[in-house]
């Protein structure tokens, strides 16, 4: 490979047939004592008008008559080499200092004649970056079929986004992260929209997985029911206001009832219902309270009996890690919002009081159940309390720019839609050209990891096959008739 030209931070590299590099590969350019690291982000043919004309002419000639060639100097094979020559477009990522450390300050230009080029292995890049950790998360393999892992420390206290088009492998990676985090002793709450994370407890052959005992599947209304007393006034208030749109006047009356029942030490869902019916209030307010009460009751999220769910019983300091999968696939949208409001409010309350250690939150298609103003709350306020979120979505435009600006890690799967690519390339941590070119051609289950997990050097990873049971597949009419 030879350097052809440089434009800004982009190098054009001439590659012959035997020179191989895939999109995303890192190359080390050595020029005497200096070295530079570049990343290939696009590949195209070496093309000139004359070359195209030659090829067209030859094709036309060969189509009209059979060819017999006598080429004593074998110039034809050289000519074929030229036709197969390619141009690699590469971005300059860093230079190597004398001490073997990376620096983003690249103020020199490598020689076109003297420079030597070779592919960099991930291990070498890691050693240059000093990328290491105690809690590895094996993700899969890089282009060189080299094992690639990130470290749980780089997800800890960070905001991450997993995005890509439908069936590109987002949930697969998400499950892998959840599983490994739990294995490392972390506590993970998953808002599971497709009821697919319950498979984490089982291997593909149906046998219990390594974390089967640590996976707790919570079904709202059945295994996930709270007592009003446990939820507390703040969580219920948040739920009524944000999920059930209760007006302020009605909310005030509701809490008068709440306080009255609490004083009587008879706070319960049944008791609230009875009080609403008999409470001396404006009829319009009563109607508002009754309608909300019926939604709450039909959601079956609250219980008056002992044994309502308590997060502290599962999330314990020094515990062995656990994944709490909240199945929301079959819930109506209002109940989904109620569950999310209650869970997040309660978790914040527990974290504030220091009753539980920090937790990781995985939210699938969060735009469907988290109100817009709540997003920023999650990534700013809740982050300080110790909720470290990973959003999983196939709609990158559902996430606002302000969230992207605070994101620490992005795992990008394939996108072919221009508007999605536009959005991602505008807000992502890597440059526009790299995102557009690499992401557009990523095969299924390949992702471009950007951000802290890769020390800001984008890496293309082929995500390893899942070990756990795949659930959440769409029920099919024709599939069922096989």
């Amino acid at each position, binding site marked *: 490979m030879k350097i052809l030209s440089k434009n800004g931070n982009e190098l054009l590299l001439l590659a012959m047939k035997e020179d191989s590099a895939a999109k995303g590969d890192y190359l080390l350019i050595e020029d005497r004592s200096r070295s530079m690291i570049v990343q290939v982000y696009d590949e195209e043919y070496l093309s*000139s008008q004359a070359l195209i004309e030659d090829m067209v*002419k030859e094709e036309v000639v060969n189509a009209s008559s059979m060819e017999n060639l006598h080429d004593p100097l074998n110039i034809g094979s*050289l000519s074929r080499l030229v036709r197969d020559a390619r141009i690699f477009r590469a971005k300059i990522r860093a230079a190597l200092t004398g001490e073997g450390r990376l620096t983003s300050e690249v103020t020199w230009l490598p020689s076109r004649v003297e420079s030597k080029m070779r592919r960099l292995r991930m291990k070498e890049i890691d050693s240059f970056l000093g990328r290491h950790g105690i809690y590895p998360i094996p993700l899969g393999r890089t282009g060189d079929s080299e094992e690639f892992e990130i470290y749980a420390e780089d997800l800890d206290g960070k905001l991450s986004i997993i995005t890509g088009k439908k069936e590109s492998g987002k949930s697969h990676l998400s499950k892998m992260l959840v599983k490994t985090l739990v294995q490392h002793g972390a506590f993970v709450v998953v808002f599971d929209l497709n009821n697919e994370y319950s498979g984490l407890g089982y291997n593909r052959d149906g046998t219990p997985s390594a974390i089967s005992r640590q996976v707790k599947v919570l079904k709202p209304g059945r295994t996930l029911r709270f007592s009003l007393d446990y939820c507390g006034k703040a969580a219920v208030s948040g739920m009524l206001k944000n999920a059930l749109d209760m007006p302020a006047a009605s909310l005030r009356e509701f809490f008068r009832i709440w306080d009255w029942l609490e004083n009587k030490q008879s706070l319960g869902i049944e008791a609230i219902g009875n009080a609403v019916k008999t409470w001396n209030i404006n009829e319009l307010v009563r109607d508002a309270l009754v309608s909300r009460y019926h939604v709450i009751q039909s959601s079956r999220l609250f219980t008056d009996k002992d044994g309502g769910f308590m997060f502290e019983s599962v999330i314990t300091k020094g515990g062995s890690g656990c994944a709490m999968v909240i199945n929301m696939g079959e819930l109506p949208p209002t109940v989904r919002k109620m569950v999310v409001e209650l869970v997040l409010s309660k978790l914040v309350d527990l974290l504030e009081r220091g009753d539980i250690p920090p937790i990781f939150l995985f939210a699938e298609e969060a735009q469907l159940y988290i109100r817009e103003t709540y997003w920023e709350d999650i990534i700013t306020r809740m982050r300080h309390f110790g909720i470290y979120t990973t959003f999983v979505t196939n709609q990158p435009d559902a996430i606002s720019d302000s969230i992207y600006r605070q994101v620490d890690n992005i795992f990008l799967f394939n996108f072919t839609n221009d508007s999605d690519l536009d959005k991602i390339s505008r807000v992502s941590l890597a440059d526009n050209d790299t995102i557009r070119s690499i992401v557009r051609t990523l095969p299924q289950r390949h992702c471009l990891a950007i951000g802290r997990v890769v020390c800001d050097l984008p890496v293309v990873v082929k995500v390893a096959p899942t070990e756990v049971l795949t659930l959440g597949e769409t029920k099919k009419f024709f599939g069922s008739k096989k």
Partner: protein
Amino acid sequence: MLINMTTQLSTPFTDSLSLGNLDIVESVSKCLAPKLDGLRGKKIVFSCDDKRMVPVDGWGLRANLYGAATVTTIRPIRENTMVAAIDSSSVKLAETEEGSLYGVKCGIATAYGGRALMHFKIGPVLFYLSESTIQDSELEDRLARLVLLDDDFAKRLIRVRAERAMQKELAGHFSDSIVLVDGSLKASIFEDRDRSMARIAEESVLRRNMVIGISKGTRLKALERAAAPLTKVPGPAYIEVDMIIKSLIRNTVGSNLMVKLGKSSPVLRADVIGDRSGSLGRLLGNDPVAGGYPETLRLAHYISTFSGTEMTCLRSHVLNNYDVTELAADDIRRTLLGSISV
């Protein structure tokens, strides 16, 4: 003060340089008689980038100063006959202190029964012409020196030798076939004795082959005017122009014709060894003619031209195989005249 000094010094000097004092304009205008009055009322075709432009419908009958020539129509003869067209091209690739390196590419395209059959690409082949290598060429001393001094002569030498070699082989190998040549059939100062045009003609006659040389253009204006009646003929036809050509050029071989091979196609010069009507009829019957030019000859031209890629590859081949050292070089014309193309 400096400005004033410059003005004072330069005024008489520039006055003495005025064109009026030098009489250059008059000298130039009188170096030849312009005779522009002679243009009046004439039909005109403007030249374009040194390319030869011909009037689409000819110059008109008035232009035929050579009397009424006989127009013979050509009937395609559908008897299966092999047509083999030959073309070549040569390029100068490099120069050393002692000589120059040239490349040649040859193409043979064949047709049979009205369809293209196959084509042969030969080359590129390299030739290094220097004082020591030119001695083997049997060229007389004066011509050899000329070849070494002038690249165009050298390229012509290589092309003529290569083409004659192919023509001789084809003429000696086939029988009852047509050997189609790009250009006129004329003995060249560059051909060697064993592969001369005369020998090729002789061999062709012995093996009942026909040789047709078709020129894309001719420098002889008289031929264009003589061929004017052909533009009025609706189909393929020819006019004999032996008298004109033999009176102007020595060493031509065969019959000299002006032919039109298709409907409303250009008139071309053709030299034929063999029966004129028979040869041209068989050509039309066996070689697809598109736009008034035989397809085999067109194909032979395509496959024998050098492409930019091939030139690059040849350079690479020379650098890698002959232990040469490439020196930095400059386009002297560009250096002297600047980057604006002139």
